[in-house]
């Protein structure tokens, strides 16, 4: 692809004899915010480490800004990486942490000072220059790590689970911060996460990975509305997935009539897509929890457990009670595999 800024071609990554990522192809445009999403062991972190140069690929090619960097060592790639653990230098002050890379480049002192101060201001850490990382909160450490990478003006900024070590409130704050920094600097960002809500909220495009392969690639809206596989659907919150055989829905537990045939082997429903209180099927409520504007039920049915969200306006169904439900054709997502 001609307009790709970061381009992975046939990238194969292995640990010893174990192939973690086979033949990965991915093109990323300049200024894009990309999420590598997937469960642990899906190869997302491995891929990120390869882009950073911390892991040499078995085969394949990594191009950044038109240059082949496959064999370029990590310290000459001009890439930033914010570690999940932040990996700040504990013996240095916040200022010296940020200045570390600039000093290595032997930039003049005044320039180092100016850039470091600007970098710390960008992430709102002005006034913390003399603090040691151990004297800073988790959120501040994260922003310090971000500043340390940003002052190097990297071609690409990689972030490993940038929000996973933060509490809910800080997470939202950091998410906004990352989006703002990305908008201000126009830097190309690739971040790794196992949290689909993070990926959807933050990224321009999401790369959903499974077993080292790209399962699906698309905008958050595409992935959310139109997952193409059972794995993708499950990751995007389609918690009820059943096989379609003829006009019946089939699971390992049993079958239910669906009423019509379709050209696809799998159908999936979000909990919100299941109709509760009316419908042709009957099940027993085995779990129920209040979630503000809706109730989350688990219904024991001939297909096994079905997760269903019901409007708070509907009368509450008590544990153990029978309830009518439907898996409507209208809310079913058709899956190819």
């Amino acid at each position, binding site marked *: 692809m001609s307009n790709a800024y970061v381009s992975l071609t046939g990238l194969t990554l292995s640990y010893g004899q174990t192939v973690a990522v086979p033949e990965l192809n991915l093109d990323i445009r300049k200024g894009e915010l990309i999420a590598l999403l997937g469960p642990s062991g899906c190869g997302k972190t491995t891929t990120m480490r390869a882009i950073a140069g911390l892991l040499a690929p078995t085969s394949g090619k990594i191009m950044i800004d038109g240059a082949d960097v496959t064999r370029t060592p990590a*310290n000459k790639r001009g890439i*930033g*990486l914010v570690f999940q653990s932040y*990996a700040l230098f*504990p013996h240095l002050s916040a200022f010296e942490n940020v200045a*570390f*890379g600039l000093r*290595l480049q032997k930039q003049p002192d005044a320039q180092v000072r100016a850039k470091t101060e600007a970098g710390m201001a960008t992430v709102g850490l002005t006034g913390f220059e003399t603090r040691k990382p151990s004297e800073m909160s988790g959120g501040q450490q994260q922003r310090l790590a971000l500043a340390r990478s940003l002052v190097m003006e990297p071609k690409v900024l990689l972030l490993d689970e940038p929000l996973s070590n933060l509490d809910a409130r800080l997470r939202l704050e950091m998410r906004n911060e990352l989006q703002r920094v990305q908008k201000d600097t126009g830097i190309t960002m690739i971040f790794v996460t196992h949290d689909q809500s993070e990926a959807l909220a933050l990224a321009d495009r999401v790369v959903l990975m499974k077993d080292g392969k790209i399962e699906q690639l698309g905008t958050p809206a595409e992935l959310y509305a139109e997952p193409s596989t059972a794995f993708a659907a499950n990751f995007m919150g389609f918690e009820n997935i059943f096989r379609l055989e003829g006009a019946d829905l089939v699971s390992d537990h049993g079958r239910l009539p669906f009423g019509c045939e379709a050209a696809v082997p799998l159908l999936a429903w979000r909990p919100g897509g299941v109709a509760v209180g009316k419908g042709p099927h009957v099940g027993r409520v085995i779990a129920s929890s209040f979630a503000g504007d809706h109730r989350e039920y688990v219904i024991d049915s001939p297909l096994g457990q079905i997760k269903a969200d019901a409007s708070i306006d509907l009368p509450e169904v008590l544990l153990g009670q029978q309830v009518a439900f439907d898996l409507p054709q209208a809310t079913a997502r058709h899956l190819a595999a």
Partner: protein
Amino acid sequence: MSRLTIWLILGTTLTFLIGPFLIVIFAGASAGEALSFPPQGLSLKWYAKVFTVESFRASFALSMFLAIFGTLTALLIGIPAAYALNRYNLPGAEAIRTIVAAPIIVPGIIVGLALLRYFVVPLDVTITMALFVTHTALVLPYAVRVVSSSLNNLRADMEEAAVILGCTRFQAFVKVVLPNIRGGILAAFILGFVTSFNEVPASLFLSGPGVRTLPIDMLSYMEITFDPSVAALSALLAFMSVAIVFVAERLLGFSRYV
């Protein structure tokens, strides 16, 4: 347990730990001619005499040389070894660790005998060289162990962060790893210094005419002369050890870490 018993146990323990030290200090400060406790009158003449004994001066110099340079050499070998054992998945790492620890486990007297019979005699090594190699080997386990444990507390991704910011692997080691294991290196140095300085059994075998470490020299001095100067010297050495630890803690420990 009653308050009395607790004080009793504490008192006994402290007496046991500090008592010998006090006895030596006072025995050395005796005005009498023979080593005894309680001292026969008080004087500092034996403390002064220590500095006039020619063989003490020579053996002190040798012991200092061995303790300082033996330990430094052990650190020079031990730090990279500890780093390699810690960071890389080496085949046989566990075996190497055990072998490195062997000089602690094997009695010094065996080490001394073996080195004399199969190292010094067949290779015709000079006494000083033999002592130097032996002390380095005996201190090496401490260097590897202590540095290893401080490396264990240091996350490997810190070095990767340094590399991403432009460091070579070696620069990352010097700029990020070394400053953060400084405490461990210092501890290893002090431990190694004291171990080397106090080493008797192996040095006993390797010492030769005119070339002795201080403890060996003190032993042979006592065989001939039974005056309080040995006690005085022992007390001085004890003060030196305390002073080293104190100064190291002050200069290298606190001011740089806080």
